[in-house]
């Protein structure tokens, strides 16, 4: 273990530069200015899987690895909606998850923002027509920002989350 820790001191970190200003600006344009000002320079996010295929979760989890190191931007995932500024929602919102999503949203204190991540979260994606799905996050709770992709790459996710904090 000592050797590995030492190696960590000698070698440069794996962490890379964040998304470019243009990438962030494109998404920031979608958001209203006031929202961004209120959030300032830090974000607490509660992730809610509303019936995803788990592909989106894999990439959300990847944000924590050494290459993206989400926390350096002042963004962290929290365990309870009561501590969150932002709900990051994935999946087409299955009807079996609809109530849980609504309750999570209700439990999140104001002011709050909702980010819908992935093709499913936008409008249900491939599951749009299903008897078992609500057809996207906006069908259940108001959405402030959508991050595209199936699943969105960690860079796309990062750009979206940083857009929330851009002024």
């Amino acid at each position, binding site marked *: 273990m000592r050797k590995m820790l030492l190696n960590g001191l000698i070698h440069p970190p794996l962490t890379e530069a964040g998304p470019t200003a243009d990438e962030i600006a494109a998404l920031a344009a979608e958001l209203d200015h006031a929202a961004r000002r209120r959030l300032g320079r830090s974000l607490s996010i509660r992730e809610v899987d509303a019936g995803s*295929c788990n592909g989106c979760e894999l990439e959300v989890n990847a944000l924590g690895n050494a290459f993206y190191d989400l926390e350096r931007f002042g963004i962290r995932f929290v365990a309870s909606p009561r501590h969150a500024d932002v709900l990051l929602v994935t999946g087409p919102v299955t009807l079996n998850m609809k109530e849980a999503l609504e309750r999570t949203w209700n439990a999140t204190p104001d002011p709050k923002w909702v980010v819908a991540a992935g093709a499913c979260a936008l409008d249900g994606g491939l599951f749009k027509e299903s008897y078992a799905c609500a057809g996207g996050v906006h069908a259940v709770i108001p959405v402030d920002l959508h991050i595209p992709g199936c699943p969105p790459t960690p860079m796309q996710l990062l750009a979206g989350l940083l857009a929330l904090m851009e002024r």
Partner: protein
Amino acid sequence: MATSPLLEILSRGRPAEAHRPWPRFVVGGDLWIALTNGLVERHWTLAGLWGDDGAVHMALIEEASQSLAIATYDCPDGRYPSVGKYHPPAIRPERALHDLFGLEPEGLPDTRPWLDHGRWPVRHPLAAEPAAGTEAQPYRFLPAEGEGLHQIPVGPVHAGIIEPGHFRFTANGETVVRLEERLGYTHKGTERLMASMPVTEAARLAARISGDSTVAYGIAFASATEAALGIEVPARAHWLRALMAEIERLANHFGDIGAVCNDAAFAMMLAHCGALRERLLRAAAAAFGHRLMMDRVVPGGVAADLDETGIAAIRDAVRIASAAFPRLIELYDNTASLQDRMIGTGIVSSALVHRYGCGGFVGRASGRGFDARRTLPYPPYDALDFEVPVLNQGDVGARVWIRIREAQQSMALIGQILDRLPDGPHHVPATGSGPGEGVGIAEGFRGDVLACVAVDGDGKVRRCHLRDPSWFQWPLLEAAIEGNIVADFPLCNKSFNCSYSGHDL
């Protein structure tokens, strides 16, 4: 091939036409019950049980003769003899089948709904004539009474970034007396969406049953459709599929090893394993154009060929991983505080994994050596050199060790595949003559994924069933946690890493 008592019994039924590569037989009540008895006596293993229009199918695997076969019981009156009455692994599939088709398993001891939470506008959505939905009823959890017992409900929204499901713990102080799972929250109605889709479109849904196993699902679904349509896939496509499958396995195993250690509060492993995983996903993006390789396996072959840049990217990522991995294994093995959490925690007995036909690292950590790549070999694995590690301890530690050994095997396999990749086309058109039925099985990182597809005369899916390995692993998590402390549940759960979406469909 060795003689097969399973096929002997089945041959008394009526063989279905154009069912490939394994046979399907329509059986009457006597044979259905004889097959159920064979499950109880462990002559063969239940590999799936699902519904159809006025019929129930069960897939059976007989390991000794390396055979797989499907038995069908026609039930125009909507009733069939319950398998779950005698063989508990069939209980949840029968409950799900009832929710989706409305077919009654006669004698099933647990008739509570499973996937249907009373939230859909219809009941029995896959039946020929679905009924109108009803009001949601409260779910009756099994009673657990006694002095000093208390209940802890968890989920469906969990604290971490994971999928939704509900866990109901009954605890006596710190000790879990019983865990009851409630699943179905991510049910997306995928099987009904697939029906009447052209096979190429349905393949995109198959790739999204469980995102972490998208390649395994792709292979199982594609081989089933190709078998149904009588399509011969070029050799290069088989090898490229296996290449993707091994990258997927390796990336997931790295992710899991890190995550299990992290749940034992040892974050350093997560940091290092997470970096190895990320490098592999980047190599996959460079080689195949998608980090998770979604939609890269398609009926007829693979979506795009692999070029020199892609090969170099994969070799690079694997070279870095094989150089770093031995140090990580040493760190894992020599950290006493970590081992203290792993050893003896969440034990699953060998008898249980055999009875449940539990695959993947959960089965192999408890002495069941089944691996579809070896037991029911498909190309190119019949031409590749690899070991299937098996351990007997059955605890969290053994499930991590199986992953470690398999990761080593996968790294070696990726090298072998790249060295011997045959030339030629990577794809043929996915058009063939229907109607036909096909079965496909693929060993994903979590275990064997089974796909059964019936294609009609226009090349459209009539009925498709995809069975995730989690069906036979979730019930054992309930057994694994019994007698452990509540605080060890995240660790046990992560060491299983069952799929919610794959199970809920």
